[in-house]
């Protein structure tokens, strides 16, 4: 993953409109800080090498 291209502030701006959310000016820096923290964790997860055959954890049982 090329994490250098992920801009949390731009992502928040884009997703706010896509999801129909309202982020007031006072909250925005905090939301961006949380997005930055999640992106850091997401980047860490994406950089773990796993074999293609690994099953995701929650498996639906009919």
């Amino acid at each position, binding site marked *: 993953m090329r994490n250098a291209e992920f801009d949390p502030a731009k*992502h*928040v701006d884009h*997703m706010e409109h896509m*999801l*129909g*959310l*309202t*982020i*007031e000016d006072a*909250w925005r820096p*905090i*939301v*961006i800080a*949380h*997005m930055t*923290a*999640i992106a*850091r*964790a*997401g980047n*860490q*997860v*994406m950089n*773990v090498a*796993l074999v293609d055959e*690994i*099953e*995701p*954890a*929650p498996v639906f049982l009919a």
Partner: protein
Amino acid sequence: MSAPVDLSLVTASKIAAMVRSGEVSATDVVRAALERVDALNPILNAFTDVTRARALEKARAIDAMRARREELPAFAGVPFAVKNLFDITGLPTRAGSLINRAHAPAGHDATLVARLAAAGGVLIGGLNMGEYAYDFTGENAHDGNALNPHDRTRMTGGSSSGAGGAVAAGMVPVALGSDTNGSIRVPASFCGVFGLKPTYGRLSRARTYPFVASLDHVGPMARSVSDLAHSYDIMQGRDPLDSHQAERPIEPTVPKLRAGAEGLRIGVLDDHFAQNGFPEAFAAVNVVAQALGVTATAHLPNAADARAAAFVITAAEGAELHLNRIRVRPQDYDPETRDRFIAGAMVPAVWVQKAQKLRRWFSQAAAKAFECHDVLLAPATPCHAPLSGQKTLMLDGQEVALRPNMGVFTQPISFIGLPVVTVPVWLPDTHLPIGVQIIAAPWREDRALRVAAALEAMGTVKSPVAAIGA
């Protein structure tokens, strides 16, 4: 009949024995608990609802059973309380929120409440919690912060904040909490009580308000290992109302407690679990390891990555649950919760899917660790209870946000659903407790409880009722 002893100091098992023998009536037990709640709750803010009429009615029914010489159930007359995300008949299930308290009152008790009540337990009320369980601090913008009974300037931990406070203060001997990333274990650590997070899927979550369905657990908190095991045994069993519960038989743990730690292979987790904390976190683990004669270390690979994956899943799943509400009523959320739900709604799906694959991989890696060890030891929290309102802390020389980092040691463990008993350690020269996680392989709650019971018998861990001044 007047109560001959201070019932706030007595364990649930002892209370039930006293009620059975007639040494004390259930009504006196419940009145004493209600009086203690009345006296202490204005100071500690552990309870959000007190079910006084229901409790007294139930106590009178138990006393009537005894008067008729009927056999009393195992938990007869034992007061208990539940985090307010458990349904309580007749009350809205507020889940720490402003929004949910306008919901219709619950028509039924949560399954675990009903099971404890069927065993003679007497529900005293609902307990404070972090909003929608997205919390490690015990702070709540709507109901006020729960305060730590051992030091009211400090956090209880969360999100089962009122549960930790109520048990530590002797308001009830047993309380129920929930744990998604550490919400039983963190307040157990900060409040100096025992906590059991069972294996994922073991206990019914039916009629509890969810947070992250793929990570949510429920379990008891208590001041003795015996009470933890007794209440856990009562609550076991298949519940058709819970589609997520595993198909497991009831596996009683109380009869196994006396086996102690004998024959169990125990290791202290290294790497991620031996850094990222303050000295007290590792000192507490050393105290426990020395008492058990443990010198072996154990390793869970990629634990930091596992924690990151739990963080991503929590953000995304929790946000999906709340998306419609944060669209239309964002101002009605606790700001600490709202801003994380908003960010969580924006998580790319590929991160979540990869996190779920990492979860499977990490579970398999842990299974290998359990080929060499029966029980693993790790800190429960990176430090003693921080001061209320504290926003950051220094970890390994770096200033980091406090809220997410209280789960640094708990998140990798609940991520793969392992059963854990948190035991309270009291280090010299401090009035604050700190917890150690006793971690077992899936479905082996008995082993974690056996080790906890051995430590309690040795006096290495204990949960005294807090001395609360005016």
